[in-house]
């Protein structure tokens, strides 16, 4: 009874159609579509990519038709390479996707009646801004799920944070106290998740969904009853101070995105760094991951499994609640009903896409943020594609990302499984 007993009969030949090859085939189709369709639809006008935050200033021009065909071919070539070799999955998929997107942009911009110029600095800034709540939300997910508790309640945590931030920020007249209240609000909702999931062993996905509905209803109720009648007294939180970093702001393309920030943008970067280090370098992190992978093993060396899970779910609530304040204190001033509108679920997808790793979740959030920014841009240049279709883009991207592109993802082994001794 050993490890290497069945190898003779049980060896299964590796299938030709690996994930990389399948993806390659899809990319070839996309490349063909771009080359032929986008190439035919594009006009000979130049598409101009400006490096700064606005349409003036340095940049480079790509002729519409030629660009659409050229980048379509790039996508095609990358897809073909992936299909033939079945290797370099990440790089080739990235190149193919970029080729496809640039090809589409050449078409769209060259035929736009409004503007043929895309300000890359603006796009980068919009990408990051759209990604901020996703980063906080997905970090909340990572903290929770690494300890073995499924967190579907990110949406509710963000929404509670947004509500608490606006309400207490206004009541106390202090932006900072509002932020603190937002974090606590998220943690309060998390506490309910923790008790039901850890103590009462209720199905964690069900609890999460119920909490989302609960948070939506409760905040909407108080919004109607308290905030709306007297906005100045209850729903007018302070302004977010902006902290540009001199010098670095002027870096082309990424400067405005990263270095003209505020507590949320800098905070999200710091949170990613801190949580990554904490998870993989500290005693707490090692124990958290052990509890999420094999709670019985952790228990047998004297680690308090349930206590650690409680702590992590609460910390996850703090992080997500803090990020929720973004909605009511940065992107708009004041709370409104259901204002998170699905970002929590995209954050959940970002966590999975990012393979339950803080850094992965960060880049996945940027990926989704980029699609958000692209939608905004295409709408602004009066793209012939209906805006409803465009606003579907991030969600379509989500489905592809979670279903196909991620491939063999391994969640923490004990994720969603309550731990009962014995």
């Amino acid at each position, binding site marked *: *009874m*050993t*490890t*290497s*007993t*069945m*190898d*003779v*009969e*049980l060896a299964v030949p590796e299938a030709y159609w690996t994930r990389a090859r399948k993806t390659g085939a899809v990319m070839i189709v996309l490349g063909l579509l771009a080359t032929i369709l986008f190439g035919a639809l594009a006009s000979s006008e130049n598409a101009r990519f400006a490096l700064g935050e606005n349409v003036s200033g340095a940049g480079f021009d790509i002729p519409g038709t030629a660009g659409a065909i050229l980048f379509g071919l790039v996508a095609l070539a990358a897809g073909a390479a992936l299909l033939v070799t079945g290797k370099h999955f990440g790089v080739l998929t990235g190149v193919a996707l970029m080729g496809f997107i640039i090809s589409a942009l050449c078409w769209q911009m060259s035929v736009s009646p409004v503007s043929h110029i895309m300000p890359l600095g603006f796009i980068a800034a919009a990408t990051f801004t759209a990604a901020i709540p996703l980063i906080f939300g997905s970090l909340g997910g990572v903290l929770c799920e690494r300890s073995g508790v499924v967190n579907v309640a990110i949406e509710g945590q963000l929404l509670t944070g947004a509500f608490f931030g606006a309400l207490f920020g206004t009541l106390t007249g202090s932006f900072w106290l509002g932020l603190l209240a937002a974090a606590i609000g998220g943690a309060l909702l998390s506490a309910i998740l923790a008790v039901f999931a850890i103590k009462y062993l209720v199905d964690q996905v069900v609890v999460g969904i119920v909490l989302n509905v609960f948070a939506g209803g409760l905040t909407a109720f108080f919004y109607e009853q308290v905030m709306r009648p007297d906005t100045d007294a209850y729903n007018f939180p302070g302004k977010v101070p902006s902290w540009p970093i001199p010098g670095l702001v002027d870096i082309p393309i990424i400067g405005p995105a990263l270095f003209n920030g505020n507590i949320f943008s800098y905070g999200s970067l710091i949170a990613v760094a801190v949580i990554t280090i904490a998870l993989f*370098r*500290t*005693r*707490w992190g*090692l*124990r958290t*991951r*052990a509890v999420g*992978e*094999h709670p*019985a*093993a*952790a*228990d*047998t*060396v*004297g*680690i308090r499994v349930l206590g650690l899970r409680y702590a992590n779910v609460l910390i996850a609530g703090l992080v997500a609640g803090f990020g929720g304040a973004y909605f009511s204190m940065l992107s708009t001033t004041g709370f409104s009903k259901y204002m998170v509108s699905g970002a929590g679920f995209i954050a959940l997808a970002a966590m999975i896409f990012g393979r339950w790793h803080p850094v992965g979740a960060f880049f996945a959030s940027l990926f989704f943020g980029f699609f958000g920014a692209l939608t905004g841009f295409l709408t602004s240049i009066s793209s012939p594609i209906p805006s409803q279709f465009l606003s579907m883009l991030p969600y379509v991207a989500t489905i592809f990302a979670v279903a196909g592109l991620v491939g063999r993802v*391994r969640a923490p*082994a004990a994720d969603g499984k309550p731990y009962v*001794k*014995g």
Partner: protein
Amino acid sequence: MNVLYGLLQPDSGEILVDGAPVRIKGPGDAIKVGIGMVHQHFMLVPVFSVAENIMLGAEPAHGGFIDHGKAVKLVREVSQRYGLPLNPDAIIEDLPIGIQQRVEIVKALTRDVDLLILDEPTAVLTPQETDELLEVMRGLKAAGKSIVFITHKLREVKAVADRITVIRRGRTVGTAEPTAPESELAELMVGRSVVLEVPKEAAVPGEPVLEIAGLVVADDREHRAVDGVDLVVRAGEVLGIAGVQGNGQTELVESIMGLRPARAGSVHLSGKPITTWHTREVLRAGVGYVPEDRSVDGLVKEFSVAENLVLDLYDLPPFGGRFALDLDAIEAQAEQKIAEFDVRTQSPHQPVGALSGGNQQKVIVAREMSTPLKLLIASQPTRGVDVGSIEFIHSRIVAERDRGAAVLVVSSELDEVVALADRVAVMYRGRVLAVVSPDTPRETLGLLMAGIDPSSSSHTPGTPASGEQDTQGEGMSEHGEAAS
């Protein structure tokens, strides 16, 4: 042992360490009083490195930050001191089982334990790995550690133990010196307290019904659980399979039933190959199946007695038509079966989970015997069942035999196998060591169950028990191991 390590709490009684009573509320307490344990199912995080697993719970750290270098050093130190080489940075799931066990042992040793509990450590090891482990245990003993070594295998205890205690059904049944003959130990292990008597005539075997040839089945971990089994069960006879649990019986039965794919070999039912058949086809071909764990496989506990009685017949007339179930027919069936099999239930509508174990088992037996059977497979047919129900179920099984069905009974209770069977096959490590008469002396059966074939030329273990198979994949075979 789980009580000793604090995973379970005792209902009564006390534990003394160095003469002083201790209360062990959790594994943390156990470690504090110097008790370490290597669990049968390893308590290792598969995606962690060796060092991470070993330091878990007692991490060397500065201000919360783990000192990885120090952990690695500790692993090296301990593994060198006890002669258990390990690569601290290897990931657990990439390591062979034997090395994983070494990690478990080193993990316990780094905690400075005085008493080490090894819970069936050799169950998962190859003979070579087992020999290495026994050597390690001798080394630990020399280093002053006490060891509690739990095993089913006589050869192993005799090789390393200083004292032997035999436990059966939660009781200490005896102690022995390692010099005691194996037959004495085997007798203690299998017991001969209760002699079950099942009144039955001599069997009149007919045509072969179930024919198994060269069957190989993998367990969930892709190990060779059934390792080339050949068996024939004839109409009108009961073939009993005896053996310590976990020697491939479960996988063998599951494979016959189409619940687990055969990796090699064939299964024929009345001459027809059924090796790749779906479970439903096997059942419909006239096979009755009493699964070993009724709460998992045999019943839907929330369903009523009546529903459970037609669980595999609901879509056949008279119970199910094209669109709807015939509830009256189902109820009539339930009334009849409850009376016939003496199922003690308040009504056919009571959830089956509310019944006693014996009555639940009777529901399964009643259902499986409600169609004319060619073959009845009963796995642990009376586990957790009261004495009255045991007699009843046994008599029904014999009645099926007398009606002309072939019967395969699998039980880890030797008494049950001997009482029911016309022929007894003893399984050990996925193989049928021997097929013998139920009148064979208990000592002989006990030795067979422990993997020793007393009929072979010498009494040393490692003598080939059956014809040598081709030996691909070293270490998969019990044969040829050297008792050092």
